[in-house]
């Protein structure tokens, strides 16, 4: 919370250093070097404030929520529902439009299985409009993370619907003409990432929503790489569903969220079933609570939800505009540094406009895992591989790439250490 109090409009390297000091994991040596953590696109580090809130929950409140009348249970329930309010506010929606999940992947599966249950006739007349048939189409893009691709393949297989992918341009951007071509009246749902975890491209969501809605289709937004890094107003964007993961935004693992428009969530048949999501249960049949409880079966990720709220409070205290602006600055520096290195081929746009603070690239003659190994030797943590986006890598003609992804706690020094590292690699491997 270092930065909460001082009003300011520009967030600079010194601010980043102050933020960094809140993160215990960043204060360690790896292979004899101070850790340079540039893998926040995979998972972020956690500030002390978040760890403290979670621990306090276990030391003072821990109890099963929405059940039982004792004091701890009442306190736990209050913290848990307050967390929902905090996170809902952070992304600009109402409390009962936020469903907790384990991660974004589960949130996408929830929607895919909800639609497939509707297609099997579950959920009664309210769910009729959500049924898919063999005539239906599901539209994604070529740039999706596997978590926003495979669940739709499976939904298509279960319902007989067809999956279509909007192709991407050579620079990884999406052309709205292609979207217009692929989204038709047969489209049931369009599932698209807000920000690519490989190219950093920020997709034109408002336009895609307009296209989808014009055809009566729903739009699900994969906000995994946007919710942590930029201001997000899901009501203003007018998406129907959105998903994100806590672990990428300063919170623990094991917590994610689904946003759904209230009416839609209440029309969607249940996905996971069991305790706490029901009204009356007989051996023959069960009634279901309204959303969000309808989708929260069994004992929930209570401490993790509370910790996620502490994380969004932390981010909110910095200010998401500043977070986004600072990461853009870092991304610009990263891109410029990498583009100067012989043999580097950046995947995606070659200029910083419309790009988030991450860069993935191929290094001619050196396999990404060797790049990663070399960097790790200097204490630099970057991600190598296909980043769960094989089709997109195939589109760029590579199997794997190296990715540096920044967060608000990264500094110019981090970026420079990375660029310097990459500069030395080809000669080490004897390819120049």
């Amino acid at each position: 919370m270092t930065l909460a109090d001082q009003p300011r409009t520009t967030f600079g390297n010194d601010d980043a250093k102050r933020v960094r000091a809140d993160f215990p994991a960043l204060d360690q040596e790896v292979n004899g070097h101070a850790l340079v953590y540039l893998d926040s696109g995979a998972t972020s580090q956690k500030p002390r404030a978040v760890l403290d809130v979670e621990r306090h929950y276990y030391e003072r409140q821990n109890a099963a929520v929405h059940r039982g009348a004792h004091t701890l249970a009442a306190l736990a329930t209050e913290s848990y529902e307050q967390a929902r309010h905090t996170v809902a506010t952070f992304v600009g929606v109402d409390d009962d439009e936020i469903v907790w999940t384990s991660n974004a992947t589960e949130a996408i599966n929830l929607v895919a299985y909800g639609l497939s249950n509707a297609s099997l006739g579950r959920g009664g007349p309210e769910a009729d409009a959500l049924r898919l048939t063999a005539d239906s189409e599901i539209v994604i893009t070529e740039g999706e993370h596997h978590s926003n691709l495979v669940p739709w393949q499976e939904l298509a297989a279960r319902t007989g619907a067809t999956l279509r992918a909007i192709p991407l341009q050579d620079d990884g951007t999406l052309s709205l003409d292609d979207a217009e071509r692929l989204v038709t009246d047969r489209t049931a749902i369009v599932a698209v990432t807000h920000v690519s975890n490989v190219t950093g491209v920020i997709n034109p969501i408002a336009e895609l929503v307009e296209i989808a809605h014009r055809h009566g289709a729903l739009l699900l937004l994969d906000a995994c790489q946007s919710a942590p890094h930029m201001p997000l107003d899901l009501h203003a964007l007018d998406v129907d569903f959105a998903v994100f993961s806590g672990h990428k935004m300063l919170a623990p693992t094991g917590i994610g969220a689904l946003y759904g428009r209230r009416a839609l969530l209440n029309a969607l048949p249940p996905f996971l079933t069991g305790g706490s999501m029901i009204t009356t249960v007989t051996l023959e049949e069960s009634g279901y609570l309204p959303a969000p409880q309808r989708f929260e079966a069994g004992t929930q990720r209570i401490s993790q939800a509370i910790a996620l709220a502490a994380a969004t409070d932390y981010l909110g205290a910095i200010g998401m505009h500043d977070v986004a602006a600072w990461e853009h600055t870092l991304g610009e520096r990263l891109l410029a540094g990498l583009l100067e290195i012989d043999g580097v081929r950046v995947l995606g746009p070659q200029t910083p406009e419309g790009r988030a603070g991450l860069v993935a690239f191929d290094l001619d003659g050196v396999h990404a895992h060797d790049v990663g190994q070399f960097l790790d030797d200097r204490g630099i943590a970057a991600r190598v591989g296909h980043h769960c986006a094989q089709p997109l890598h195939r589109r760029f003609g590579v199997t794997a790439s190296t990715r540096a992804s920044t967060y608000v706690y990264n500094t110019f020094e981090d970026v420079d250490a990375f660029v310097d590292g990459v500069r030395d690699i080809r000669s080490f491997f004897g390819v120049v």
Partner: protein
Amino acid sequence: MASPELAGLYQQVILDHSKLRKGSGLVDGGVAESHQLNPTCGDEITLRLHLVEGSGSGLGSDSGNAGTAGDGTHGSASEPIIERLSWDGQGCSISMASASLLSELAPGLTPTELTERIALFREMMRSRGAGVEDDEPLGDAAVLESVSKYIARVKCAMLAWVAAEDTVQQVTAGRA
């Protein structure tokens, strides 16, 4: 043996009403019925609204205590009057006492006035022990204020009132 707080929650009048269960036993007739379930505990209530034609001069509108005052929806000369509430249900002492106290309060009010009382009761229940400025319009039911400190029990006290609100809304919707 029991703390003052607990004694405040379970005041004698509440314990008495939880056994008295005024209005308990569904009576034939009635213009609307509502069934409400408290999913946390599985308790439920079925409540019927019984009206008689009346001159409904709008007691609520000049009592000045209502959150909805001035919204122009009440005081129509033809408004009927509540003859009684009848109900059937099971639940904890708070929920039973609350249904009983509501059944004592409602007769003689217009639906509009009852709606105002329900809004006031809800405000009191959400006050977390702070209460409301003027709880007179709630009559003996004002004693349930102590429940508002026990967030987990607010639903118990509200159960019958939510059912009553639903019946009034059905009637209003029917008239509209």
